[in-house]
């Protein structure tokens, strides 16, 4: 009993360490003033100013969704191809696919700068930024799809072919539905990674193009006048992100539990 109490206490402490800073931020996002620790008056002032950073938020979301979509298509096809190619070619591609996963983002980003330099292109461009994010995320899609391919009954594809499906039909109607959960996990992972990225965006994005990461970095690390002015707005943004995430997590879990219950009844 006492052991259980201490065990729960430890988990509670670790969770407190993670959540206290976020809760402080949430509380002060409703403060009229902008200094933390000085409570002036409850207000939604900073939420009203969220419009000031809408470009930054839009840039971040568009970058994440578009790059994750391309990474998912590329990575899923790559994973299927990789899984069925034996021999040296498969090994080499598999090895290369692991490099961006373990490589530090700094090196990935700088290596891409060198690529654009050597072909004589501008090293900061939207194209380069998207390429950077796809390099970062596509290998994670591959890593989430491969386990589903391993679980899949390999005779399904052959059965579909024997029953007269063309390879393309077999792929879309048989293989794809089987690995869809992995594809979805890969996509979500790609979105998270892209949203969380700072270094690649800072190195490859066109000057003046800010995502949440780079804009907040300017506010907390460089503490330029304009950027610090916006800190309270980012408190409001954090609150909004936290609430959205929390609702998604709760809703999806309640739904999953309902489905599990229904299956249990059957």
């Amino acid at each position, binding site marked *: 009993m006492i052991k259980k109490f201490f*065990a*729960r206490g*430890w*988990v509670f402490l670790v*969770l407190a360490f*993670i959540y*206290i*800073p*976020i809760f*402080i931020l949430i509380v002060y996002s409703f403060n009229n003033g902008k200094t*933390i*620790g000085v409570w002036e008056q409850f207000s939604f002032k900073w939420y009203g100013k969220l419009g000031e950073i809408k470009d930054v938020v839009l840039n971040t979301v568009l970058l994440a969704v578009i790059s994750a979509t391309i990474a998912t298509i*590329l990575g899923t*096809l*790559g994973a*299927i191809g*990789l899984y*069925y190619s034996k021999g040296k070619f498969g090994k080499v*591609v598999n090895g*290369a696919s*692991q490099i*961006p996963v*373990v490589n*530090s*983002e*700094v*090196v*990935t980003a*700088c*290596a891409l700068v060198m*690529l654009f*330099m*050597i072909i004589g292109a501008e090293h900061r461009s939207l194209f380069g930024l998207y390429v950077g994010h*796809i390099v970062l995320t596509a290998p994670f899609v591959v*890593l*989430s799809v*491969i*386990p589903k391919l391993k679980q899949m009954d390999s005779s399904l594809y052959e059965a579909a*072919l*024997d029953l007269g499906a*063309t*390879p393309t039909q077999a*792929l879309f109607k048989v293989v794809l539905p089987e690995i869809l959960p992995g594809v979805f996990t890969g996509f*979500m*992972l790609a979105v*998270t*990674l892209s949203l969380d990225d*700072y*270094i690649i965006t800072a190195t490859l994005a066109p*000057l003046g193009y800010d995502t*949440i*990461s780079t804009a*907040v970095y300017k506010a*907390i*690390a460089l503490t330029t006048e304009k950027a610090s002015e916006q*800190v309270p707005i980012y408190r409001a943004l*954090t609150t909004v*992100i*936290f609430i959205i995430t929390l609702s998604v*997590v709760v809703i999806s879990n309640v739904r999953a539990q309902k489905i599990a219950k229904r299956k249990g009844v059957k």
Partner: protein
Amino acid sequence: MKNPAKEIKREAFEKEFKSKRFNFGFSRKHLCIPYALFLVLFVIFPLLLVVFYAFTDANGSFSVYNFIEFFSNPTKLSTLLISVLVALAVTLICLIIAYPTAMILSKMSKHTAFICLMLFITPMWINFVLRAMAMKELFYLIHLPMGSFASIVALVYDFLTFMIMPLYSTLIKMDKSLEEAALDLGANKVKVFTSVTLPLSMPGILSGAMMVFLPVMSCYVITDAFRGNNGFSVIGKLIAWNFVGENGTLVNVNGGAVIALVMLIIMFVSMWMTGGFKSENAGRGTNL
């Protein structure tokens, strides 16, 4: 028992479809061609360029000047050393906090463990720079100064969950009867931990360490935000500075390439020491 008539039919079918496939010129493994091309163009070739730029000067002729410059510059060398030490310290602190947490979670009832896991994962959806900002505001609120200590706390704060997740997934898969067997055979609890639980959870420890150690060395966002006037910086900053400079312009590509090459070597050495990357733990904490 083979049915000859069926066998012949099947063969005919197979022949037909094989020829169809052949005409189509398409097989499943060709699907990975776009991805393979993408990797060659944007991963392998750029890494070769890192080596190329490291061994050339601004005019493109062969030179080891940048290596000599890096290895004879005490400030840069000490940044490298400090990065490795800080990364080790952060990894160790994360491990010390995460291991008991993961172990407790793995022994909870399925339902409670699931809720706790969700509680750990949810904040990870908040951008990591925003989380760093939250930590910085906490430091302001309780009047703690910026500096080395602040940097380390912030790094642990940002990377802790990446350590908990692989540890949890290893511990939950572990065969619990082995621990019980060791207890039955007379080992005390400490002995059970050191000679059964710990060795069996090594894959989780190693993947967690890989997810913390290398990123910390390049995570200059945190150190820039928390170093104050007397804190440390990490090696990632040295590389990035050559490519980003003060206003986002290139400074010294060749010099940056040398440090990037050093980082690559550190990466390969740590990969080799930990026995490569385990794909089942690739979640970076968000993949359940």
